[in-house]
């Protein structure tokens, strides 16, 4: 089993890439990996409760978040990115992670996939 960290920075709007990154994160659990999904920079808007990226060319965010939560995988949003963008509420199962702790997580991961 490997520790796989998926770091997503792309915006969730106007493109399905962020949703695809999340789908890929779910897919990584099929390898029995310890998956850690981290959203940073503009990607954190995907965690805004009022955001509906699927309405403007984005993809479904709720299903992969719910699936990862059910599978007991770890999900994080970078604290600094949240504060800069005024995103204060996070979905259940998503934790905040400070940039310094994220750096440590990346060092400790076997595989890091950036989007």
């Amino acid at each position, binding site marked *: 089993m490997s520790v796989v960290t998926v770091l997503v920075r792309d915006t969730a709007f106007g493109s399905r890439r962020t949703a695809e990154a999340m789908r*890929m994160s779910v897919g990584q659990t099929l390898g029995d990996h310890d998956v850690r999904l981290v959203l940073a920079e503009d990607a954190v808007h995907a965690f805004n409760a009022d955001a509906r990226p699927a309405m403007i060319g984005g993809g479904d965010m709720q299903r992969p978040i719910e699936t990862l939560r059910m599978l007991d995988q770890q999900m994080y949003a970078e604290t600094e990115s949240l504060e800069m963008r005024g995103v204060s509420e996070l979905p259940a199962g998503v934790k905040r992670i400070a940039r310094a702790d994220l750096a440590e997580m990346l060092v400790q991961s076997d*595989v890091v996939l950036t*989007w």
Partner: protein
Amino acid sequence: MAQTLGILLTTSPERADAHTVIQLARAARAQGRGVRIFVMCDGAHNLNTDEFQKLALEGAEIVACSQNALERGVEEVEGIPNVTWGSQYDFAQMTGECDRVISFN
């Protein structure tokens, strides 16, 4: 046993990523290393390019996310060895089996 480089490619052929992936894959293979490439999202479009098919003929193992390929109308080309239409399961296996995995997004 030879080390294996895993590559995730999600961008389309007109981006520089594809060129970099092909050159890196050739360099790794020239050093006796294995190369496994997983294409998804717009990266699926690379399947039908001459350079990618040449790379497969040279021995690189290429797996495509069939869901993304079908969404984009990419047709499966028969007769090209080492190219497989797969799924996220295949990429999950790849991340566990390769010595190093890098992503081009």
